[in-house]
């Protein structure tokens, strides 16, 4: 075991291999507050990569309804329980979120999936995990508006119709893809070294020639984003649409393009980028990269279950309305600060939030041109001032991709031709 630094948990940790980081890292921010679970991302991915025989159960991109839903069922709860069992009552954070880039969310004092040796079976296993059952993979969006029959009657819908269940409690939609982690558990667990992380963009791939379908990656990934394919007897996972990220799509003329799931997002919740990495695994300061800004400056986007220890590169703007205890468990101690910033965004954050989904090109830099004050008011004792600034996005080649304003025009179609363009 090597000793590596994981900035998301604010400490050194054990990992089976020496740390190695790409020049740039594939990363993304999902704004959960905007997600409506339309599943456009899910179907964009499905129709591009997993529509073949043997892939029926595979959803590299999925949206699940939390707290009950999960694909596979209970994926997060089960890993959290395993860790709790390995380290009872001690899976806690200490310190507070602060300016220290080595531990921006404080320090996680519990153990990660790489540090639960006493729980590992067999002894040769490197990562704490479990293999989901076939049934847990069967219902990708279970409990989300399932039609049900009369109680006690199986396999038959109610002929008279039933009232749909009311959501009497809070819930939110969690969109997920592979996090292309900096310390991938799938990679750590593979006995054949068939999984690798690309040095140019940090995308984690399974070499289909090397894989023998041992499913150690499926067992190890705490996010359960590697999946076994029965008819080819190898495992598969999200490939981050790497031909698009490489700029191979003719539409962009060689410029990096965002993945299918990102560009299909109707709710405009998604932004994907390629961030610069230092040799120690921290992010190179790149003040006007929108992802760097949201994650390291505004700190409005947080990693998903950082305590698992894989240093995921997917970050989420947490939903405002969900009880904080649940969110702190899911996104770590930075939740309160992130929600505060999102609820009362400053001038720069408001502009950066406008960058989501205006283009399918990867944004490498933004610039804000100040506009006039539109209005000001007070909400919950806080002054809100809105400026109609213009935010300009630039691509890898330094050329402008688009520009947009804070105050968007609203177009209402005439009643006579409401459906015409």
């Amino acid at each position, binding site marked *: 075991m090597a000793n590596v630094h994981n900035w998301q948990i604010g400490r050194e940790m054990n990992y089976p291999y020496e740390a190695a980081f790409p020049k740039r890292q594939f990363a993304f921010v999902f704004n959960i507050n905007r997600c409506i679970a339309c599943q456009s991302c899910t179907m964009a991915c499905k129709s591009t990569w997993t529509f073949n025989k043997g892939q029926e159960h595979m959803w590299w991109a999925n949206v699940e309804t939390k707290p009950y839903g999960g694909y596979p*069922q209970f994926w997060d709860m089960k890993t959290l329980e395993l860790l709790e069992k390995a380290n009872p009552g001690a899976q806690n954070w200490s310190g507070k979120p602060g300016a220290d880039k080595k531990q921006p969310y404080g320090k996680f004092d519990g153990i990660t999936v790489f540090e639960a040796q006493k729980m590992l079976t067999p002894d040769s296993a490197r990562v704490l995990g479990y293999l989901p059952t076939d049934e847990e993979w069967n*219902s990708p969006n*279970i409990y989300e508006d399932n039609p049900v029959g009369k109680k006690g009657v199986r396999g038959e819908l109610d002929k008279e119709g039933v009232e749909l269940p*009311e959501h009497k*409690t809070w819930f939110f939609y969690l969109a997920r893809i592979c996090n292309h982690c900096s310390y991938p558990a799938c990679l750590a667990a593979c006995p054949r070294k068939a999984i690798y992380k690309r040095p140019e963009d940090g995308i984690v791939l399974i070499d289909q020639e090397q894989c023998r379908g041992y499913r150690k990656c499926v067992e190890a990934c705490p996010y359960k984003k590697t999946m076994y394919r029965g008819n080819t007897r190898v495992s598969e996972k999200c490939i981050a649409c790497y031909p698009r990220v490489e700029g191979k799509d003719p539409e962009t003329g060689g410029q990096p393009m965002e993945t299918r799931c990102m560009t299909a997002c109707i709710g405009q919740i998604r932004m994907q980028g390629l961030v610069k990495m230092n040799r120690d695994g921290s992010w190179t300061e790149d003040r006007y990269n929108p992802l760097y800004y949201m994650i390291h400056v505004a700190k409005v986007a947080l990693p998903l279950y950082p305590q698992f220890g894989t240093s995921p590169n997917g970050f989420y703007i947490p939903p405002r309305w969900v009880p904080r205890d649940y969110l702190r468990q899911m996104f770590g101690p930075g939740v309160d600060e992130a929600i505060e910033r999102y609820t009362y965004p400053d001038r720069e954050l408001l502009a950066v939030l406008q960058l989501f989904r205006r283009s399918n090109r990867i944004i490498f830099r933004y610039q804000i041109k100040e506009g006039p004050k539109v209005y000001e*008011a*007070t909400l*919950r004792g806080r002054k809100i001032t809105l400026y109609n600034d213009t935010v300009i996005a630039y691509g890898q080649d330094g050329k402008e991709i688009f520009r947009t304003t804070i*105050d968007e025009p609203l177009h209402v179609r*005439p009643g006579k031709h409401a459906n015409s363009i």
Partner: protein
Amino acid sequence: MPYNDPDPTDPNMLVGVMLPADAEATTEMAYVFAEEFARMGHDRRQILSLFKNPFYGGAHGAYQSLGETAIESIVDECLAVWGTVVIRDRDSCSPEARATSTNTVLRRE
């Protein structure tokens, strides 16, 4: 649809568990509803009717839990900030208003 009936002894199985939100989360949720609809140009009557209608489970749950006075106060507060957007549909305007209005109207008043 699940293939097996829920096993009541399985702690992971959903058998009608309610995860209640605390007052803070419910208040936050009510603000989100009110802000969202105020930004879309709904007026006080429309937003309040959303909260009062049991069909809208989330909003109505907050209405029941926090009470009418609290909800009215939240709606008024949000309207004061975000309710300045007025969308006029020319088709349903009077002929006089139609003459001075366009179909693409975003007006802050």
